[in-house]
């Protein structure tokens, strides 16, 4: 399983490298080549140039997201699993930018990678004896879980692909949405905004209280 995780990581890396290479090749070959004979139009690398660069980059992001998520889900080493989350979070943030949600992309970078991931890695390091990295992320119910997962994946893919989604075809250009989000936060979403602020304060205090170790001398001092 460890070997599988490593292989998946290599696969994701290879896909990413291939994507970047394909982008470079496409950029080089799609430009007007001065003095080129132009007789090699059926070359496969030139075929790749027909795909827009942004699409190629998107496929690279998708490969990184899914490959990293597979490492997270299947790796036996919890440090690898945690670090692989970095790829998933980053790639999903990139997809947010593709979806004209630039602010969300940056928030994903700040909150998920800068906050949640660091928290998770801290928890891993604080709760594990670093020595036993061999089997610190054991797996149970593998057959049943994989069966349920396969069924769920089939159902979700069926819905995602076969459903006649009412997608618009007059998509506007990609625009920054920071202004619209800010306006909506202090108009339509003002109450949830304030509730989120109170929630975060409560979380902050609560987390500190939960992890705090009460020392005996300190307790005596209180009373």
């Amino acid at each position, binding site marked *: 399983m460890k070997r599988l995780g490593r292989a998946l990581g290599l696969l994701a890396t290879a896909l990413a490298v291939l994507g970047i290479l394909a982008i470079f090749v496409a950029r080089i070959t799609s430009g007007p080549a001065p003095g080129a004979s132009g007789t090699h139009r059926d070359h496969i690398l030139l075929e790749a140039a027909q795909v827009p660069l942004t699409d190629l980059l998107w496929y690279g992001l998708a490969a990184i997201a899914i490959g990293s998520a597979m490492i997270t889900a299947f790796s036996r080493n919890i440090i690898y*699993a945690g670090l692989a989350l970095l790829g998933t979070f980053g790639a999903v943030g990139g997809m947010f930018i593709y979806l004209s949600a630039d602010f969300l992309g940056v928030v994903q970078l700040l909150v998920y990678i800068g906050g949640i991931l660091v928290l998770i890695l801290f928890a891993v390091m604080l709760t594990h004896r670093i020595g036993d990295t061999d089997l610190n992320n054991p797996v149970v119910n593998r057959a049943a879980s994989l069966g349920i997962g396969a069924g769920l994946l089939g159902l979700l893919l069926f819905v995602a692909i076969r459903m006649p989604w*009412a997608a618009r075809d007059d998509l506007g250009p990609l625009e920054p949405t920071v202004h619209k989000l800010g306006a909506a936060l202090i108009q339509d979403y003002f109450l949830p905004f304030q509730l989120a602020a109170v929630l975060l304060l409560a979380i902050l205090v609560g987390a500190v209280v939960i992890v705090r170790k009460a020392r005996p001398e300190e307790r005596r001092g209180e009373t």
Partner: protein
Amino acid sequence: VLPSIGLNHYLVVSAVLFTLGFVCVLTRRNAVALLMGLELILNAANLNFVAFNRYIAPPDAVSGQMVALFGIVLAAAEAAVALAIVLALYQNTRTIDLENLHEAPEFEPEPTA
């Protein structure tokens, strides 16, 4: 060669991420690894919200992005509290193995002054 990017692409990626997170939650015995699966699930849901906001909602709407924004806030809150609980659990029982938790030593009562 490859189809251009549309709503279906995002839904497929999101479905795969969701399934992987789900399998991770089902199979893990380590509490922290289970939380990683939860984060994958939340990320998949956020991706769906933003994709629907781009492709289906009216052009000026940001409601999907707003839901995703609150989802990120809630995910951060959930991660902070859950990891604090895991840490407190570890300090008291020296294990975060969810299968062994029921046979772990009892929580020591706090010393009274």
